[in-house]
């Protein structure tokens, strides 16, 4: 009894005393993120309600018309970005699932080797990879050139500057973001569950649809999140691979900020984009819990 008390006492005492350690540890990082992440977003909201121009300065005037102007002028690019994002997410899912499945269930001892191969693109700059696709897909380049020489394609055929090129580039660039979380969730499934389904005379398809796929849903969620958000907001692929008919909302925001210096309109647009995307993310996080999204996302 006496021993029990002695062992207990320090714990109770420690719990009551205020411990500064975690606050001191978290403080510098939290302050950095507050100043360079949270405050800027609040400022974006404020600037989006201002009027004026670079020469004469901007005044805060509750100018909500910036939002209606933004949507009126750029709804085409906005909708196009969302559609591209949806197509890219679907394409990476369809292309990536069989890969993730095979590595998870048949990768054996070489699983980490396959994952390493899957991650190889990350060792090359995003911009260079996209430039390489511009090169591969160029009108008389290494892919289309020979096909045209063989008269398999008309000489006017081109891929660059079309939606296909932009969607293809986005799909390429974000495919690993879909495959990784899918792999993580598939790898956790005990193969004995599949065996059990087979024992119960489930067909291969049925075993997959009723056992494997439902268990991989967290990975699907995380993969959709990690692919949809960055691909809908991307402007690098549309700049390098696209043309005037494939302009995305990211291109518009970049031009408004860096070329036109129309900060209120640009802020309104990026705030709408953020609101749409973050609302989606928060709904996802609520459904899944942030811990699980992290877990799946971080592998």
């Amino acid at each position, binding site marked *: 009894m006496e021993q029990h008390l002695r062992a207990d006492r320090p714990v109770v005492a420690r719990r009551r005393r205020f411990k500064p*350690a*975690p606050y001191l*540890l*978290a403080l510098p*990082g939290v302050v*950095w*993120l507050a100043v*360079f*992440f949270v*405050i800027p977003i609040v*400022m*974006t909201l404020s600037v989006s309600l201002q009027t004026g121009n670079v020469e004469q300065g901007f005044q805060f005037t509750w100018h909500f018309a910036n939002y209606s102007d933004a949507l009126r002028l750029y709804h085409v690019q906005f909708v196009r970005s969302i559609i591209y994002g949806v197509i890219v997410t679907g394409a990476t899912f369809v292309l990536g699932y*069989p*890969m993730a499945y*095979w590595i998870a*269930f*048949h990768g*054996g*001892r070489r*699983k980490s080797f396959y994952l390493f*191969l899957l991650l*190889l693109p*990350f*060792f*090359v*700059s995003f911009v*260079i*990879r996209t*430039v*390489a*696709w511009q090169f*591969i897909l*160029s009108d008389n*380049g290494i892919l289309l050139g020979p096909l045209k020489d063989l008269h398999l394609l008309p000489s006017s055929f081109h891929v660059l500057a079309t939606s296909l090129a932009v969607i293809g580039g986005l799909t*390429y660039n974000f*495919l690993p973001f879909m495959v990784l979380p899918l792999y993580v969730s598939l790898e956790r499934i*005990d*193969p004995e569950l*599949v065996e059990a389904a087979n*024992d119960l005379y489930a067909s*291969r398809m049925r075993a997959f649809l009723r056992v494997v796929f439902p268990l991989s849903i967290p990975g699907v969620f995380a993969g959709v*999140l990690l692919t949809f*958000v*960055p691909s809908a*907001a991307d402007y690098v692929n549309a700049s*390098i691979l696209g043309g005037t008919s494939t302009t995305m909302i*990211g291109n518009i*925001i*970049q031009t408004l*900020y*860096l070329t036109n210096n129309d900060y209120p309109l640009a*802020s309104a647009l*990026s705030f709408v*984009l953020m609101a749409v*995307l*973050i609302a989606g*993310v928060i709904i996802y*996080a609520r459904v899944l819990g*942030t811990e699980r999204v992290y877990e799946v996302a*971080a592998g």
Partner: protein
Amino acid sequence: MSQAVARPVERPAAAVEGRGPRRRGQSRLIARLLAAYTWFMIFYLAAPILVMIAFGFNDTHSRVNLRWQGFTFKWYGKLFDIPDLSQALRNSLLIALVTTIVSTVLGTMMGLAMGRYRFRGQGATDLLLFANIAAPELVLGASLLTLFITVQFQRGFVTILLAHVMFTIAYVAVTVRARLAGFDRTLEEAAQDLGADPWQTFRKVTLPLIFPGIMAGALLSFALSIDDFVITNFNSGQTQTFPIWVFGATRVGVPPQVNVMGTLIFLGGVTLAVIQALAARRRTLD
């Protein structure tokens, strides 16, 4: 995890009565098709890298590097012949290095606070980290530019650094925190019972345990920083980094030096990753 999967997936034929042999053949066929598909996709993922490496050896005579004209090593000799490009690469490396140091220190501290303690405001901090990772780069970059414009802060080297630390801290924090999951706190208590002060306990017990997480976080920050285009694009002013220079060059033709630099960065990164993986394997074998 790995033991569970090491077991064969196919069922013993006898137990499936009659249907066995056919099913097993079918299953082997599907596995083979999937294997071929996976290798095809790996090739697809590697294709632009192969193109980049190959055209660093192209014997082209102008900046325009579009057609194969024969094999040469000359671009490796002329690697630093374009002063702006060399300066951009130097900027990228310096920014990535400083970013890695600052983010690793701040991120590790945050990760420790999150994984090692319970405190008020932890949920909010968690949401902050999550929002920072989930927010699209475009929004991070554009909002930060709004801040710098509003307070009239000149864009350049310093603003790129501030931005890069902002988007890499959370990755370090999350990596370190993941490493602390399942951390046995009795180890620290044991050290303190044996007379170690808090700093000694941290250095001799906690730090070695979370070190792989810190290393992984540091490598991740370096990789994210050196590759970043979007956030840098908004906050760089006149200063150029390697990705910014390459993006600007797409309009006039990307010179072979870019391929060579890309190839060297690729090889350096792969080498580091392999060394880290081998070190991690040796640790687990020990």
